[in-house]
C-alpha cells in the first residue's frame, strides 16, 4: 500500500506526471478573472470565494483522465488486478495520491490568490479549511469517473461531463462556507455539510470505481 503510494507520487512528480499542471492552471484561471471582470475591488471581493472554488474544481479535473488510463495502456492494470491488493484499496490509494499531488497544492496556494482577488479578511481561514476538506471529494469522485472512462480513447472530455455535475454539491457548500465567512456570518453548517459529502465520497467511490475497473478488465 505504501509502495503504491510512493510509486504514484514518484510518477506524478517526474516528467510528464502533471503534478504541477493543476496548480499552474489554477493560478492562471484565477488571475484571468480580474482582467475579465475589471479591477473593482468590491466586486472582486464578492465573487472571490466562487472563483477560487471553481478554479480549484477545474484544476483538479485536469490530471484525472490519466489516473487509470496509463496503467491500462501499459498492462499495469492487469497485473494489479492479480495482485493481493483489492481493487477498492488500489482506487483509494490512487485517489489519495491524486489529492496529495493536485488538491493539496491548491489548498496551499489558495490564500495567496485570495489576496489578489481582495478576499475579505475573515474568510482566509475558512477558504483553506473548506478547500482542505472539500478537494478530497473532488479526487475521489473523479477517480470513479476516471475508472468508468478508462477504456475510452481521449476520454477526458467525457470524464468532465460525467464528473462535473457530481461536483456541484461540494462546490455549493464549499463556496458558501467561504462566502459566509467573508460576510462575517457563521459558516459552520455549510462546512459540515460539505465535509459530510467528502466522507460520503471517500467511503463509496472506491467501490464504484473498482466495479467499473472490473467491468473494463473483463
Amino acid at each position, binding site marked *: 500500500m505504501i509502495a503504491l503510494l510512493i510509486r504514484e507520487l514518484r510518477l506524478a512528480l517526474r516528467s510528464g506526471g502533471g503534478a504541477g499542471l493543476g496548480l499552474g492552471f489554477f493560478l492562471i484561471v484565477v488571475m484571468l478573472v480580474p482582467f475579465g471582470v475589471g479591477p473593482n475591488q468590491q466586486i472582486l471581493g464578492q465573487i472571490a470565494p466562487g472563483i477560487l472554488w471553481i478554479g480549484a474544481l477545474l484544476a483538479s479535473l485536469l490530471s484525472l483522465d490519466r489516473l487509470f488510463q496509463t496503467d491500462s495502456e*501499459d498492462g499495469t492494470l492487469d497485473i494489479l488486478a492479480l495482485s493481493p491488493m483489492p481493487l477498492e484499496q488500489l482506487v483509494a490509494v490512487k485517489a489519495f495520491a491524486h489529492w496529495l499531488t493536485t488538491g493539496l497544492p491548491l489548498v496551499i496556494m489558495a490564500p495567496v490568490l485570495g489576496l489578489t482577488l481582495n478576499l475579505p479578511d475573515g474568510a482566509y481561514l475558512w477558504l483553506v479549511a473548506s478547500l482542505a476538506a472539500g478537494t478530497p471529494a473532488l479526487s475521489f469522485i473523479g477517480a470513479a469517473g476516471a475508472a468508468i472512462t478508462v477504456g475510452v480513447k481521449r476520454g477526458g472530455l467525457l470524464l468532465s461531463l460525467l464528473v462535473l455535475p457530481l461536483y456541484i454539491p461540494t462546490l455549493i457548500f464549499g463556496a458558501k462556507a467561504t462566502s459566509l465567512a467573508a460576510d462575517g456570518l457563521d459558516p459552520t453548517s455549510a462546512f459540515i455539510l460539505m465535509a459530510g459529502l467528502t466522507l460520503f465520497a471517500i467511503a463509496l467511490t472506491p467501490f464504484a470505481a473498482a466495479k467499473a475497473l472490473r467491468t473494463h478488465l473483463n
Partner: protein
Amino acid sequence: MSLSVNNLSCQRGGRTIFSELSLEIAAGEAVLLRGPNGAGKSTLLRVIAGLIPAQTGEITLNGTAFSNRDDFHGQITYAGHLDAIKPQLTVAENLQFWAQLFEAKNLAQTMQDFRLDEIADRPAHACSAGQKRRLGLARIAVTARPLWLLDEPTVSLDTETTARFAATIDAHCAAGGIAFIATHIDLGLKAPRSFEMQAYEPKADAPEHDPFLKGDWE
C-alpha cells in the same frame, strides 16, 4: 498443484474464440501452448488469469474453483504482451514496486538472474525492447506464485537471455510449479509438453449464437 480446464468456451464480440476446450496440467509440468495466429492462445491465458470472462466451462487450480476469485488468482502470475513498466521509473524502482506489492523477498537474486543489476539505475524509457522484456519477466520470477501464464515471453530477447529464462522456468517447474507458455519458438526447456490449439471453425449444425438474431430479447 494441478491446473484443470474443463469444457471451456469463450466468445468475444459475438465471435467464438474457442469452444469446449479441456486440458490437464500436473505439478512440475511446463506446457507450450501452440497454434496459428488468431487461434485464441492469448485469450485462453487471459481467461485463466481472470482478465476475460468465459461463457461456459470450469477451471480448477489445485482444488480451488475459478469462482473463488481471491484464492484462485492468488496463485497466478501473468505476463502478457505488455510489460507493465513505467517509463519514468528506473529499472530497480519498477521491479521493487512489484516485489513490495506481491510481498516477495528474492528481489536482489532476481535482479542478478535477469542481469538487471547492471542497468538498475537506468530509467525504463532508456532501455531497449529486450531489456524491458527482461524486466517484465523478472516480475514473474519475483512474484513467486505457482502458476505462471506466459504469453510470448521471449519476444525481442537475445538467445542467451532466452536460455537463461528457460532455465528459470525449468527451476520453477522442478520446484513443483506450473508454467503455461504461449510461444512459437522452441524455448529449449528440459521436458516441455505441447498443447495444440486450432482456429475455431463453427460446425455446420451448430450456428453461432447471436442473441440479436435469435429473438432472445423479445
